């Protein structure tokens, strides 16, 4: 049953910003990065810290993110939400903030993320809960889960390692047009294939980066949005697809929860894949955009590997995907979903310089969390869509 009460235009994204990215100074905390992102995002739209009355946050390094943020910034929120479903948490926060603003529970909401996983190590930043049914087999998580999805896709559909590598190469080409991207050198398919194996068939160049970083998004009512500095960007479609927690419980490793979240978001937006100008997909590994392009209807199931080949998703290609350089080449502090929202907003505002997609008015933002576990789709639109 889908009974949608979220109203188009009742809330808008008005401010976005990254914190410092890459490698931050010793002893920087995830909350330092959230606070920096929040102040920058407020500055982006012309609001003050004292305007903020709702806090949304998540990070693997602080279970009580919103409490820490409240204390650190001296805020008195009337609404808070610490929803933690991994990398797609922030796509969920957008919908939760949309609902809270529409209901009048709050007027200015900030959504924040911060992580120092490059500085403190991935193991320290994201400790894994003990699971008897996995621990004895020592999967290299999360990579081994995505590797088994890739292996299954290759087995069923003939997808090749070269096709996976095309995703990494396209991401690198976009990253070279993003001044704050971590990677600065070109990458070839041959280099991806020759790089160190992590969990077969995924090599280190098939895997997202390990960086520090954070950021924030400011949302407010549709009415107030029109009075602020920048062109508002509206959430117009939303869908959730939580399919499992552990990879052994994913029914079909070649079909993700995006096949559920995508159609829900499209139905709410009244749009389909052909109406989307900018595609921002969580690229944790090279297999993930392939799965999401299929599940979100950009190509038939099984065709993703062939679809991404020949530069189709790279700069100048038919379909611009992951225009900031992605988790593969721009930044990936562990829960990357916030950054694809930031990039989509900038694309819809026309702020992206050399990597700007011409006349972008609609964007699909697809967040992924866990081991292909939590799939959240947001469709965003410029003023003409409201």
């Amino acid at each position, binding site marked *: 049953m889908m009974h949608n009460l979220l109203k188009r235009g009742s809330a808008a994204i008005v401010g976005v910003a990254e914190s410092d990215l890459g490698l931050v100074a010793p002893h920087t905390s995830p909350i330092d990065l959230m606070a920096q992102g929040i102040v920058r995002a407020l500055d982006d739209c012309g609001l003050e810290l004292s305007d903020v009355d709702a806090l949304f946050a998540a990070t693997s390094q602080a279970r009580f993110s919103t409490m820490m943020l409240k204390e650190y910034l001296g805020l008195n929120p009337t609404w808070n939400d610490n929803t933690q479903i991994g990398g797609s948490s922030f796509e969920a926060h957008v919908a939760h903030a949309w609902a809270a603003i529409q209901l009048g529970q709050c007027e200015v909401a900030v959504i924040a993320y911060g992580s120092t996983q490059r500085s403190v190590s991935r193991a320290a930043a994201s400790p894994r809960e003990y699971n*008897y*049914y*996995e621990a*004895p*087999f*020592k*999967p*290299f998580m999360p990579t*081994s889960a995505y*590797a*088994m*999805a890739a*292996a*299954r896709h290759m*087995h069923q559909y003939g997808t090749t390692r070269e096709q996976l590598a095309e995703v990494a190469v396209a991401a690198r080409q976009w990253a070279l047009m993003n001044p704050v991207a971590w990677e600065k050198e070109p990458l070839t398919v041959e280099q991806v294939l020759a790089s*160190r*194996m*992590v*969990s*077969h*068939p995924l090599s280190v160049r098939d895997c997202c980066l390990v960086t520090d970083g954070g950021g924030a998004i400011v949302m407010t009512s549709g009415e107030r949005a029109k009075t602020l500095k920048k062109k508002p960007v509206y959430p117009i479609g939303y869908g959730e697809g939580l399919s499992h927690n*552990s*990879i*052994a*419980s994913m029914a079909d*490793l070649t079909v993700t929860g995006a096949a559920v979240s995508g159609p829900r978001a499209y139905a709410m937006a009244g749009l389909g894949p052909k109406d989307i100008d900018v595609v921002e997909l969580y690229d944790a590994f090279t297999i993930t955009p392939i799965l999401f392009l299929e599940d979100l209807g950009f190509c038939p199931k099984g065709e993703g590997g062939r679809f991404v080949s020949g530069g189709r998703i790279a700069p100048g290609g038919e379909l611009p995907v992951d225009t900031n350089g992605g988790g593969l080449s721009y930044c990936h502090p562990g829960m990357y979903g916030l950054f694809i929202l930031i990039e989509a907003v900038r694309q819809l505002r026309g702020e992206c310089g050399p990597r700007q997609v011409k006349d972008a008015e609609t964007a699909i933002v697809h967040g992924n969390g866990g081991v292909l576990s939590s799939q959240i789709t947001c469709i965003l639109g410029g003023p003409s869509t409201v």
Partner: protein
Amino acid sequence: MDLKQQSPLGKYLEHLKAGEFAYQYSPADGKAFFYPRVVAPGSGAALEWRISRGLGTVYSTTWIPVKDGQPYNVALVDMDEGFRLMSRVEDIDAKAVAIGMRVKFRAHAGDKPEDPPYPVFTAVEGA
């Protein structure tokens, strides 16, 4: 199930210590489930314990390199009774484990004396 007496994992381990690979079946749903639970997912129906025949098929597989050592395998195995688990296929090269390979269960002792046993698999000869 009285959780003050026994947990689902506790019951499963009791079978495994006896060399049996136990799983749960919901007569109401006509389906097998794994990992062991208090009630059947979806319906909340009661579950009964059954012993697997121990035969399954590799659904997907990966190998992980080890610095200065041999790579090891991690696999997802679909059991003939209709449930899936994570495990590994032993006694062959990790890189030779393939999707579709028929495999057979055996109980493996915990890696440390205090650790519980766990199920592993070997390739079925001539399959």
